[in-house]
């Protein structure tokens, strides 16, 4: 299946018009940035996501969700990307929802996600580069529960989250996939330090410190020492989702740039008449189409449980980040001086791309995965 079903097209159209109207740059991104909002997004809009049922896309029907999959989530994420809409959708409704799927934590948190009253986050990275196998945050058994010590960073929306899905080491050593365990860490856990940091794109990510954070045994998500599987499931959903959002960022930046090429005149003609710019714009168009195909291929394979899903999650994340990077660089360059100003929106695309490109592994991380999965 490579074209979308009628239902998917309807979802895409309604998400597109909702986000263009309510999620636009002036109304959301610039507004929350300029008033110095501590969350970096608006809870009112998150509630609107919920009212439209969008927060339940990845939640099973048995829990009151839409019971759809990554393909549908990706359709929404492309529109989020196009409008640079700040929203907990990816972290909460896709990544965290996938991490707790099928566990007791789903009963606890799904209702709040469905109503738009809850925000969740995922804490994986411990250094500046994504390396989930290297997780070192220690979770030592203590009585019936666990004692957590260590640090996390780049926990997107971690400062706004009611609960943080945290990858910790209960066994093995850093570098091993065995011995990882996922924990549901409440925001008010004693010993949990949260440093809410503003990123280059005005979104927020937390640096967390764990100093003897005590958790009950029922804080474990899934099985002790078996956290790699649910973590990968969540990360791969995040990668395919971030890829789709990056495609939206690329398409948004490219559309803005092509419009500019048709309006701006120099030397008595539209700059879009110059072949040097036409060919670059056409090359970018081709690249965006390819990145979109890769993103939806990854989503499809994740939905069907295909064995190539892991490979394509990396292909999609890597390709979409490469292409979105090209789109924003060409965008700023082709806009000329105005592209360097804060007043113009094109620079905001460049900032968003930088963050999404890093999220859940950058192009270098994912090229390495593709090489390894291909046996070289």
């Amino acid at each position, binding site marked *: *299946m*490579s*074209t979308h079903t009628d239902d998917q097209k309807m979802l895409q159209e309604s998400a597109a018009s909702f986000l263009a109207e309510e999620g636009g740059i002036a109304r959301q991104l610039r507004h929350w940035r300029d008033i110095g909002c501590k969350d970096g997004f608006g809870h009112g809009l998150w509630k609107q996501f919920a009212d439209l049922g969008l927060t339940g896309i990845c939640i099973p029907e048995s829990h009151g969700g839409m019971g759809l999959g990554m393909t549908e989530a990706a359709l929404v994420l492309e529109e989020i990307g196009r409008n640079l809409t700040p929203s907990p959708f990816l972290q909460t409704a896709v990544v965290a929802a996938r991490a707790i799927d099928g566990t007791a934590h789903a009963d606890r948190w799904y209702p709040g996600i469905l109503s738009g009253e809850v925000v969740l986050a995922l804490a994986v990275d411990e250094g500046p580069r994504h390396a989930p196998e290297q997780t070192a945050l220690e979770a030592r058994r203590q009585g019936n529960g666990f004692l957590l010590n260590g640090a996390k960073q780049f926990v997107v929306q971690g400062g706004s989250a009611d609960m943080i899905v945290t990858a910790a080491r209960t066994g093995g050593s850093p570098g091993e996939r065995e011995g990882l365990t996922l924990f549901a860490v409440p925001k008010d856990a004693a010993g949990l330090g949260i440093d809410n940091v503003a990123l280059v794109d005005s979104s927020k990510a937390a640096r967390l410190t764990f100093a003897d954070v005590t958790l009950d045994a029922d804080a474990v998500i899934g099985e002790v020492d078996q956290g790699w599987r649910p973590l990968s499931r969540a990360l791969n959903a995040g990668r395919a989702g971030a890829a789709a959002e990056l495609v939206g960022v690329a398409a948004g930046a490219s559309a803005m740039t*092509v419009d500019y*090429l*048709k309006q701006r005149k120099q030397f008595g*003609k*539209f700059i*879009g*008449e110059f*072949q040097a710019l*036409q*060919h670059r*714009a*056409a*090359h970018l*168009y*081709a*690249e965006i*189409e*390819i*990145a*979109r*195909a*890769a993103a*939806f*291929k990854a989503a499809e394979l994740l939905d069907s449980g295909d064995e190539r899903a892991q*490979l*394509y999650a*990396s*292909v*999609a994340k*890597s*390709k979409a980040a*490469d292409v979105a990077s090209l789109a924003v660089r060409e965008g700023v360059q082709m806009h000329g001086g105005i592209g360097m100003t804060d007043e113009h929106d094109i620079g905001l695309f460049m900032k968003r791309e930088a963050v999404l490109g890093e999220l859940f592994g950058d*192009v270098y991380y*994912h*090229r*390495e995965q*593709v*090489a390894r999965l*291909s*046996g*070289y």
Partner: protein
Amino acid sequence: MTEIDTFRSETRAWLEANCPPEMRKPIRSEADICWGGRNWTFQSDAQARWLKVMAERGWTVPDWPREYGGGGLSPDEARVLKEEMQRIGARPPLTSFGISMLGPALLKFGTEEQKRHYLPQIARGEIRWCQGYSEPGAGSDLAGLQTKAEDKGDHWLVNGQKVWTSYADKADWIFCLVRTSMESKQGGISFLLFDMETPGVSTKPIPLISGSSPFCETFFDDVKVPKEQIVGEVNKGWNVAKYLLGHEREMIAGMGLGTSGSSVTLGSVVKPTDPLLRAEIAAFDVDALAFAAMSERFAAQWKAGEAHPASPSMMKYAGTELNKRRNELAMAAGGSDALEWDSERSTGGATARTWLRSKGNSIEGGTSEIQLGIVAKHILGLPA
């Protein structure tokens, strides 16, 4: 079981029973491809048998109507057949410009009589076609062609020269763009079909940097072509030509997937050990796998009528540039081994020859620059 599942299991069983084991081995070189035609010598009994059994079912052209020698399969069935053939590594039973280029144009523009006459011959691999498009003075500016066809009452009299005619020296018939009016550039072109054995037709192969000569110069000296061998109306051949170019670009774009037609990564074949080369190959493989997803999506959208009419240009551009990059990296990975030109060890310099040949991919069928111009103008709507 749904109908399509039934079709799949029947197809799988039939292929198992009928596809000769030799035809399930990867295509190693040009010599393994079956082109068919009046003068075709089969490489093996297996190649002959495979073409025969597939043609009998209409599966050399699975989605053409049955009355014209096709399989009459629905898009879904055709996809299943393709998947099942890929599953066992079955080679295409027949490759030809009749299938990939002329056939689709005849299906759209041909008269009923033309369809019934020409299409079954193409489907059975009896006639090998070549394409008479480019001329010495008309490359990227194809519509500037000068080969002339004069109306002599009961026949056309053709005079002129074509160049880059693929396999003209091996082809039985030619589909050829000719000028039938000087009044208008694009509006003075007609689309003729004629036998390469007609008196006055001669060909001369052009040796390429790759050492092979797949292209020819083709000369027409007072060639008489029967009046009815025109496709579409007189002076309306440019529409046929453009439609056919879309199919040609689609076919050339497929080269981005490598000669195996699958999405096998380059790294898994060449096993790079140098860390910097490995990194470049990994970056390439990401692009190649992404393009494989694009090809699938494009095929589905094209069949569903959802693709932009100019999108084959995008596919052609991306696919050929990718194939050139694949070959550059294959040469780098091969080191000095890849420089050998005719040794047995190097299978006759296959890596180097394929590398050199790939340079033509972004020239033939409209250069990359022409494709980018089409995308800029027709898809992005940039001013001319």
